[in-house]
């Protein structure tokens, strides 16, 4: 789950990380009000859950409340990478002296969280990492012990931070670690972390990703989820615990297991077809979940055929078959359906589907070929 900049920074602030004064606005009038409260120059920043908004014109500086209103109106009228801007953050402007990059994320290879820092922060940090990797500091955090002050100091020293900022940085690093832990983040990023001309260290921007698997214990944060930008099908899929990604082809896929789902897509392509979606019903899916999955697939008007590829393990084929029957009864699909059931309770599942007028297949290759043929009509 992604958080907006303003949400991330609110959390940062709760853990003692300095952020600019500012608030979020949904209308130009609100932006004007906030600018008035703040006084002086403000920055208007589009709140969208994609990167690259700065280059797209989604960040602008206003000198007074009137200009803030005007610029907010412009930005609130924009779409960035296809996403409409529905909110802007109005922050007081800072006098930037230096931009630092600082983040905590998971290093799956090391099995540990890692701090990434660079004194050459800012929007071009990936280029810095690619061209001058020596300017990027990476230090791991022991997930059991946690971040120690001395390790944070070592990061500051390694990136060559001026010594007078070591204490500020250490405090921010410890704060960000607390944020990372408390929110079950997979990424907590401050870019830029700026040193102002007034010698203060401030988190000017913030980006956070949360671990979807941990949302069960992040109830408050999950409640703030911004679904404006999700397709209705994705929202529906999430409700049922299904993993769904819409694609551009015409063969709907319902598979159990992410690996097998990807493979089913691979094999459809191998035999000349185009998958309409990635859909993993997960392990141990019951008939309700399966019915929901089928409804989601059939909502897509592009779908000309559906491939069910279920290899039972923790998922029982009879449960899947029941779900298919429920959904067919409800949705009355007009497109051909290719079904392949193998593994746990496959026999029982096949029996249930015997009278359902479906194309059956034995192997995955066979199933894919039949689905490709069916989609071509």
């Amino acid at each position, binding site marked *: 789950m992604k958080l907006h900049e303003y949400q991330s920074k609110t959390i940062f602030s709760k853990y003692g990380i300095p952020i600019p004064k500012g608030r979020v606005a949904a209308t130009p009038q609100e932006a004007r009000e906030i600018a008035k409260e703040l006084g002086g120059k403000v920055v208007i920043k589009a709140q969208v859950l994609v990167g690259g908004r700065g280059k797209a014109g989604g960040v602008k500086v206003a000198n007074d409340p009137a200009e803030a209103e005007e610029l907010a109106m412009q930005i609130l009228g924009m779409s960035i990478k296809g996403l409409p801007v529905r909110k802007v953050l109005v922050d007081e402007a800072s006098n930037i002296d230096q931009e630092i*990059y600082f*983040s*905590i*994320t*998971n290093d*799956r*290879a090391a*099995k*540990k*969280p*890692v701090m*990434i820092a660079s004194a050459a922060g800012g929007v071009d*940090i*990936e280029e810095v*990492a*690619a061209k001058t990797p020596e300017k*990027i500091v*990476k230090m791991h955090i*022991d*997930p*059991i012990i946690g971040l120690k002050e001395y390790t944070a100091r070592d990061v500051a020293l390694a990136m060559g931070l001026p010594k007078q900022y070591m204490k500020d940085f250490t405090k921010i690093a410890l704060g960000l670690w607390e944020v990372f832990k408390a929110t*079950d983040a*997979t*990424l907590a*990023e401050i*870019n830029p972390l700026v040193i102002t001309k007034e010698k203060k260290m401030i988190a000017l921007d913030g*980006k956070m990703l949360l*671990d979807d*698997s*941990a949302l*069960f*214990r992040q109830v408050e944060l999950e409640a703030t989820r911004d679904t404006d930008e999700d397709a209705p099908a994705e929202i529906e899929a999430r409700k049922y615990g299904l993993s769904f990604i819409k*694609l551009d082809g015409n063969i709907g896929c319902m598979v*159990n*297991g*992410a*690996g*097998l789902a*990807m*493979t089913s*897509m*691979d*094999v459809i*392509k*191998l035999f000349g077809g185009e998958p309409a979606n*990635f859909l993993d019903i*997960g*392990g141990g899916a019951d008939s309700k979940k399966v019915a929901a999955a089928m409804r989601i697939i059939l909502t897509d008007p592009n779908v000309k055929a559906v491939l069910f590829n279920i*290899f*039972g*393990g*923790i*998922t*029982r084929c009879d449960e899947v078959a029941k779900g298919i029957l429920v959904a067919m009864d409800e949705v009355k699909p007009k497109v051909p359906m290719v079904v392949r059931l*193998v*593994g*746990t309770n496959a026999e029982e599942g096949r029996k249930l589907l015997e009278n359902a007028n479906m194309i059956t297949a034995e*192997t*995955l*290759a066979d199933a894919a070929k039949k689905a490709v043929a069916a989609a071509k009509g």
Partner: protein
Amino acid sequence: MSILVDKNTRLIVQGITGNEGLFHTTQMVAYSDIVVGGVTPGKGGEKVLDTIPVFDSVKTAKDATDANASIIFVPAKFAADAMMEAADAGIPLIICITEGVPVQDMMRVRNYLDQKKVRLIGPNCPGLLTPGEAKVGIIPGNIAIPGNVGVVSRSGTLTYEVLYAMKNLNMGASTCVGIGGDPVNGTNFTDVLEMFQADPKTEKVIMIGEIGGNEEEKAAEFIKTKMNKPVASFIAGQTAPPGKRMGHAGAIIESGAGTAADKIKALEAAGVKVAKHPEEIPTLF
């Protein structure tokens, strides 16, 4: 011979009275005689399937049964504790089937288990199958036959696909190891390849990978430098759209790695034959 589990394994099931735990215990018991007990706090003293004693804790289960492996079916929010409980009770091999364990939990667990030198398979994995001897997990027993091919996979159901294709060609497996697809897990490809290389019963190896991470690349390096047994492979996700980016940090920490093309290239450079679809793998030896 085989790796990790065989007919002498003494297995306990954590979460044995839950829906999934009970269902798969029934399947495991039907397959082989290795389940010696189960654990559900509060239900100690009961029995499941008439004969398998239930205990309140792994410690009491281990004391009573001398178990040497534990399989975990508890819900994700309890899984981290379940793994640590098994490790603290002195179980040397833990198989965690549970999916959806938070990644920060897994980092703590993995680092803790490493300190205790405990072997973990999973989480979010189908477990282990040594055909004809031991089914420890949810891999359907009837889709594989005994043989000399070691199978290791990050995927669940895709693994079944491959075992099933092998069986249809009358090709048997020594042991099949589902290591699970989570970003932080217990055992990786290289660990298992090393065991297969050392196992006299295993003559060939099938490795089933997928996009993301760099374990396949590391495995390729291991195969190139340390293995003399033939390896065939398949990488899932060749046509998958690029995944969601983890901000700048993701780009920096995992730069470049993780595409199917990269993995296939690395494997082929190590002399591994890579299949176009899973049913093709067994035909490549």
